[in-house]
């Protein structure tokens, strides 16, 4: 396959109910979605359920997918994370909170930074950047992103004041930005 279809072309094909397009999107992003779900859930079979559900929802709702609001990759990954966190909370018998995808969450264009990091020669780059964060900041970031905790829950779980958690989340992203920029990655929009 030398002429790969773009993500937008695949969405258009999905809107024509072409199963092959779903297969191609799965081949492209299924591994990323599964890895993310696995990271959140720590369980392969639950991660499979999440990924199946997310891709099947895309198949069912392709008609209403609006590419101008964000890429299909961003949507698939955001959905995989949300559904995983939803599963996690259900399993922990906690009250479910609203996990509806806020439309604004992937409206903004994140593709430029993504392709820079994804295409960077060294794939360990981002992991290294995270590893270089101060432990307390990395922990707050991971609890929020992979654990799906709110800042108040993080404050609770780590036994620090809410204001400290806010600061840690902000500093974690700031430090991550600096570390990526020191590797020649442009993070400004």
């Amino acid at each position, binding site marked *: 396959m030398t002429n790969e279809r773009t993500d937008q072309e695949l969405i258009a094909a999905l809107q024509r109910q072409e199963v092959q397009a779903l297969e191609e999107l799965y081949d492209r992003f299924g591994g990323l979605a599964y890895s993310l779900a696995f990271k959140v859930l720590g369980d392969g079979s639950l991660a499979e359920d999440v990924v199946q559900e997310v891709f099947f929802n895309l198949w069912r709702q392709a008609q209403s997918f609006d590419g101008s609001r964000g890429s299909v990759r961003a949507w698939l990954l955001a959905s995989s994370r949300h559904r995983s966190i939803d599963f996690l909370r259900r399993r922990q018998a906690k009250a479910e909170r609203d996990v509806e995808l806020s439309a604004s969450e992937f409206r903004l264009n994140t593709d430029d930074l993504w392709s820079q990091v994804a295409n960077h020669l060294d794939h360990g780059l981002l992991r290294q950047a995270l590893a270089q964060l101060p432990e307390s900041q990395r922990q707050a970031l991971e609890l929020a992103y992979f654990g799906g905790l709110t800042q108040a829950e993080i404050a609770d779980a780590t036994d620090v004041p809410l204001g400290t958690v806010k600061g840690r989340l*902000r500093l974690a992203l700031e430090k991550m930005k600096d570390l990526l920029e020191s590797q020649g990655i442009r993070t400004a929009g």
Partner: protein
Amino acid sequence: MECAQVAELTAAYALAALPEGERREVEAHVAACPECRARLAQEQALVAVLPLAVEQRAPPARLKTRLLQAARADLATRERQPDTPAHARRRGGPRSFFATPLPYAAAAVLLLFAVGGLAAWGAQLRSLNRQADAELARLRSSTRILAAQGTEAAPGASGQVLQLGEQQRALLLVRGLPTLPPDKTYQVWLLKDGKPVGAGLFQVEAGREAAAVVTGDLSRYDLLAVTVEPAGGLPLPSGAIVLKAGL
């Protein structure tokens, strides 16, 4: 809300760690404040790349099979629904042939032939598929897949490294690398702390994906690289790196 307050919250917003109330307040503020909006956009872009920091795992083959089966079943159900005209749903699709009006007798004969033929063929395929699925599942459960990317010397190239369980070798699948003249070869290297060890040679046929067996225990190295070298390969690389994969 003032900019200073919002600045404390945009990171948590980007990480979806804000309760509903504060989330709405941030949204209302950034809608009217370009400066905070720009910072939020940057933070959202940073959050969006976090999945790349996760250790990549190959999903089991059955997941794809299940998903595609569900989509096909869904398609079949939708096509049986009488509320949409058949031609509207089927236009351009592979099933458009069946939407063509045919005399009933001819259609019945065609259908019988197709069903009979397909059933036999299908049974054969299913048995083959089951074997292949089982084999794939076995392989995937012990296989690690790593992405390889073309460098500036070959920006269109990409590939995958398949590490087969605990074996002392891996498979490198490459596409988008140009065919070399006969006096040149692609050579695979495994590097630890910048020191390369030769790990195999391969050629690329025009327009084809190439596969190369990589010999060596990948867990002992931190980088896989491909260079262009004289035919037969060299003990140390001399050419530019055209493809890389972090291990």
